């Protein structure tokens, strides 16, 4: 038994040093990336100080063209949207940003569901590289599991499954994006079809609380917030997720705009890359439409003269 314990300790020490060494190398190269989605998350969390920020998932990332906003409003802009990451990720990024500065306007592109989806929790792994340095996001990342603080004692674990993307990000092969925005260049040519209605479902309380936290953080910090649901290329009757989002925004007096039934887009497949994502032309058109809304809203709240 004594021999086993001694060898066990030796083995654990070896694993510890390997873990530390490999983890440090990964950390160095992770934050040294100059392209790719991981690099864009680092900019969102640690660097951007743009006046206007866009939050959301892939639909946010591909739908808000910075040129339109920068040229018309003469303000700085950054799109923090990231593919496949929803409310948990967005609120964590906002918390990190608020630790550094207060943006002047936030555009929130709503997508996803309020129901329980395990994958949404799994996707919080996107934030693991920031877990150690960003205490403010730990509550959200810990939703993955109560063992997250222990798991993060490992130096490799936060960079699990990121190796290939780190190599791509450092070799400049990753998509750079324009102020975070990544354009899609495809053209959808399938006919318009109808999606099933999403009726009332059981809400995941975590998601609801984190979504409310996002809205409340903006309110508490006096940051004007506009919530959008950007266009899709399908029809549907009801979508409880959107209904609930609208209801919450109304209760909190937050402007809410739903473009999913906008005829300008439903009649124009050429504006889409796929049925849920606009291509670059679609993004330009949609950005112009949202720009007009921003102007109206900011005029109404007199912010255009004060802050803008």
């Amino acid at each position: 038994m004594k021999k086993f314990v001694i060898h066990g300790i030796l083995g654990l020490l070896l694993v510890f040093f390997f873990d530390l060494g490999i983890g440090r190398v990964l950390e160095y190269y992770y934050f040294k990336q100059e392209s790719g989605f991981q690099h864009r998350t680092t900019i969102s969390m640690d660097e951007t100080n743009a006046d206007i920020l866009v939050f959301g998932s892939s639909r946010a990332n591909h739908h808000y063209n910075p040129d339109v906003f920068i040229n018309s409003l003469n303000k700085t802009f950054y799109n923090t949207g990231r593919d496949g990451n929803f409310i948990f990720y967005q609120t964590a990024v906002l918390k990190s940003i608020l630790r550094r500065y207060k943006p002047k306007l936030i555009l929130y592109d709503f997508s996803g569901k309020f129901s329980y989806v395990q994958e949404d929790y799994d996707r919080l792994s996107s934030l693991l590289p920031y877990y150690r340095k960003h205490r403010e996001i730990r509550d959200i990342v810990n939703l993955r599991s109560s063992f997250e603080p222990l798991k993060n004692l490992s130096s490799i674990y936060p960079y699990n499954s990121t190796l290939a993307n780190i190599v791509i990000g450092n070799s400049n092969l990753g998509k750079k994006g324009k102020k975070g925005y990544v354009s899609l260049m495809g053209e959808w040519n399938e006919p318009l079809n109808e999606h099933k209605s999403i009726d009332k479902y059981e809400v995941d309380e975590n998601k609801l609380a984190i979504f409310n936290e996002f809205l409340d953080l903006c309110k508490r910090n006096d940051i004007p917030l506009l919530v959008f649901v950007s266009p899709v290329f399908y029809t549907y009757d009801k979508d409880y997720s959107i209904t609930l989002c609208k209801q919450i925004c109304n209760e909190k007096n937050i402007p809410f705009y739903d473009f999913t039934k906008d005829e300008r887009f439903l009649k124009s497949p050429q504006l889409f890359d796929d049925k849920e994502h606009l291509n670059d032309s679609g993004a330009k058109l949609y950005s112009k439409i949202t720009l007009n809304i921003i102007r109206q809203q900011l005029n109404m709240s007199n912010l255009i003269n004060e802050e803008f």
Partner: protein
Amino acid sequence: MLFNSFEFLLFFPLVCIVYYIIPIKLRWAFLLLSSYYFYMNWQPIYAVLIFTSTLVTYLCALKIDATQIKRRKKTYLTLSLFINLSILFLFKYYNFFNSSIFGLLNDLGIRMSLPNFDLLLPVGISFYTFQAVGYTIDVYRGDIKSEKHFGIYALFVSFFPQLVAGPIERAVNLLPQFKETKIFNYEQASDGIRLMIWGFFMKIVVADRLAIYVNSVYGVPEYHSSITLLIGTVFFAFQIYCDFAGYSNIAIGCAKILGFDLMTNFKRPYFAQSCAEFWSRWHISLSTWFKDYLYIPLGGNRVGAVKNYRNLLITFLVSGLWHGANWTYVIWGGLNGFYQIIFKILDVSPKSRKIGVPFKFNYLVNLTITFVLICFSWIFFRANSLYDAITIIERIITVSGSLFIGDKSSFAYSIFAISLLLIKDAVDEFYPDKKMFFTSEYRSVRYLSYTFIISTILLLGVFDGGQFIYFQF
């Protein structure tokens, strides 16, 4: 509790420490308690089912042993089988048979129906039921004496390393081990740790990584091309192997650390030269269970050729049904039975190559043919429905197109993981006596090999992979 969960990483060392510290006479009770805790961590109420199965088989075995009258022995055996298989039927097969039979009657114009039960399938029910039933049959046949100590017997049925996904142990092998005084054995514990590390690699790095691609391909087969479906099927072949063999390795490793020897469950099945050999290397504990308790009682191969083929087919069909209450599993079983029959008729089953003998061209041809046939049967095993399975086969034959890669990095990790697995398996298969990597005579090489595998698990493992596929069976 899942082996690949963080809870288990805390649970198992704690169990080991306490197990070796407490007095020997209390160890069985501690292991029994730990085993029930392990199971109840998932769905506490279903521990009642294990307890029921334990109690019924324990009492029936006592009664079988106590009487000399053959008819009474048979009555108790029947009672034990009836209760155990009824529980299994109710939880696993009732809805399937209900919808299949009444669906057929409806098609014939006879309107009848029974309500379906909305029951969650108890994890590992097929495994512990078969283990307990196997014990009763052994006692009935006089192969073993009934166990008098209820606690020891309850531990035999619920021993946590192999409770939910096997290996399905035989009483003759495992029961006596619970009565032995286990003294910590360095070599055995080292072997156990080695098996556990490799098991975790197979599950977390290979199986769960491949599952990402397989799920996206098999989820919507109607959108994928021939090459994508072929790659998806090959990936599934390795996924199911690593998922299940990985679990078995962890289970056997855990048991070894505690001083118990469980039977080997997998012997590098994709190096088999024939379908018959494949089944002597794949899920060995289940294959031998069916051989001993179904195939041989049916007459085995000591009957005429036609009856022998019938016995093979029945055994494989039941094996398919054991895996799941779905026609896809039945067809998968039937297909494997059919392979055995055809190979027997054609008399082309090559004899197993002796392990360690260098391979020849014929060996590669046989290996490839076997692998292709087994992969073809996996299509039915993995497809979400019979309709999907047929769609996949149709599209493999007819639809050309480009390869869907999905997440490029994940695809690259998949290839890397399979390569590493094949290197290790090939070394074990062809050079069993060479001491390399884990078994090197140099301690530094062994330690570096472990460290490399652990680092790979941390770096490339899928930690959100969830359950083992075989838990559902």
